[in-house]
């Protein structure tokens, strides 16, 4: 948020909102950025406008419904050519929980170009301001005729605090037992498992995730956890790189040598509280060998 406020204070940058059929979460939070002093867009030298023709920055919410499409495209066409477009929340980017509905015509990118994404469901006002700042930086760069500077976005950013806001998800592959409950409960289809040569890979896409944390709630070993890192805004060119991933390596079964996903110590602790060495042996056995160890060889 290193805006040159003095420069823009003279002529405010005008923000124009388009709701493409959202649950109103992002819209209500945007209303906060015009009503509540702490989060007022004025601090960025911005002001909201009701006129599409005045838009310097267009803020778009919602998954783009079939019914809203024509009006959205009409409004967008009325905005100036040099505006910067920001997708607010994950809905415009991926449809979020509404993806693949008969009544949804997103993602927005199919219909118009987006410059900045602000993931969140909804993003907190601080995140909205961060996203708008990013749009302002792009706008300045374009006006100066230079490429917008691209800072590396790896890892936790300095701005991220430890506030208990549900932000970026974190995956600890060492604790994962490949039960896939996280994928089962994920309403937004944000988690994928892929079986490879050497292990199983989990990929969680933050532009689809709605940060509800249900995956973490049902994860038996705590392999998935919600972090307080809410700074997820990024240039749209990085849309598909916003992932958390990890590979759960296969190990040979200590009985027969077949490739298996060994049970994580966290699972044994969850299941047995205090696993003894006998129980710990189970961790590295395939289901068939475990059966043999527990009840002897299955009889025909």
């Amino acid at each position, binding site marked *: 948020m290193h805006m040159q406020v003095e420069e823009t204070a003279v002529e405010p940058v005008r923000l124009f909102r388009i709701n493409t059929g959202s649950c109103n979460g992002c819209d209500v939070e945007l209303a906060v950025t015009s009503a509540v002093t702490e989060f007022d867009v004025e601090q960025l030298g911005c002001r909201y406008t009701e006129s599409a023709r005045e838009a310097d920055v267009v803020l778009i919410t919602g998954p783009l419904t*079939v019914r809203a499409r024509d009006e959205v495209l009409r409004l967008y066409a009325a905005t100036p050519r040099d505006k910067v477009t920001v997708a607010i929340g994950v809905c415009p980017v991926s449809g979020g929980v509404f*993806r*693949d509905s*008969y*009544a949804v015509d997103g*993602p927005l990118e199919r219909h118009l170009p987006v410059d900045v994404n602000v993931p969140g469901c909804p993003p907190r006002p601080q995140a909205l301001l961060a996203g708008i700042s990013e749009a302002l930086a792009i706008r300045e760069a374009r006006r100066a005729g230079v490429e917008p500077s691209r800072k590396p976005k790896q890892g936790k950013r300095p701005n991220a605090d430890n506030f208990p806001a549900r932000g970026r998800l974190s995956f600890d592959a060492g604790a994962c037992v490949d039960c896939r409950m996280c994928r089962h409960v994920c309403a937004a289809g944000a988690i994928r498992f*892929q079986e490879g040569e050497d292990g199983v890979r989990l*990929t969680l896409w933050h532009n*689809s995730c709605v940060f509800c944390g249900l995956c973490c709630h049902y994860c038996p070993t705590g392999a998935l956890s919600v972090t307080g890192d809410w700074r997820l805004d990024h240039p749209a060119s990085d849309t*598909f790189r916003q992932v958390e991933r990890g590979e759960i390596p296969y190990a040979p079964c200590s009985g027969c040598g077949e490739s298996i996903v060994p049970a994580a110590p966290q699972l044994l602790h969850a299941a047995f509280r205090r696993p003894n060495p006998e129980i710990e042996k189970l961790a590295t056995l395939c289901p068939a060998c475990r059966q043999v160890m527990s009840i002897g060889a299955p009889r025909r």
Partner: protein
Amino acid sequence: MTDCAETMPERNNLLRDNLPTTPLSPRERVPEGRVRDAFEDGVAAALALAAGEETTVTWRRDRKGVVTGWCRLPSGEALLPAARAVAELNGRLAMVTPYLPERAREKGEREIAYHFDLDGATLTLTVILPLQWARVPSLTPIFRNCDWHERELMELYDVQVVGHPDPRRLFLDHTLPNAPFERLVPYSTFTNAATGKALWDKVLAGEREDA
């Protein structure tokens, strides 16, 4: 925990002091069940009188004493008189649920559940209709607020509502085909999760690039 059975009579006394009660009010959920039975019997009798003697209501009461009544109407023709009887009992139309029940296609049947509020109790009248060429009479002339429920029912399902005063589409965009809820099986012929797949292909392709 405070057992709710202990606290409920007290609450009911409180209410009884404050509220004038009508003879058929389910508010009078007294512990011994005497007055409540009168309410349940009254509703059942009114429905039997209107929709035919074979009309029966199954009552369920939850742990908090909230009553739900379930009634499967003997025929489609019984809907209108039954609805009128509910209106006579000062029932309020609360919701209309059309659905394709389990094994709908095998049995060639569909159902519509009409949910009414009777001062806190919920009465559900269910009509069973043929899967093909289903028709129901409009209840909008009896319950003004049935209007949108029926307009929605007509656009989402292949059901004709006879006598609806304003049968235009309501929520569905004009470019969408009618009756999307009829196309439950198989999903793949309707929306095959194409958007999700296309997006994930890009996410996973990006990963390979990075790797």
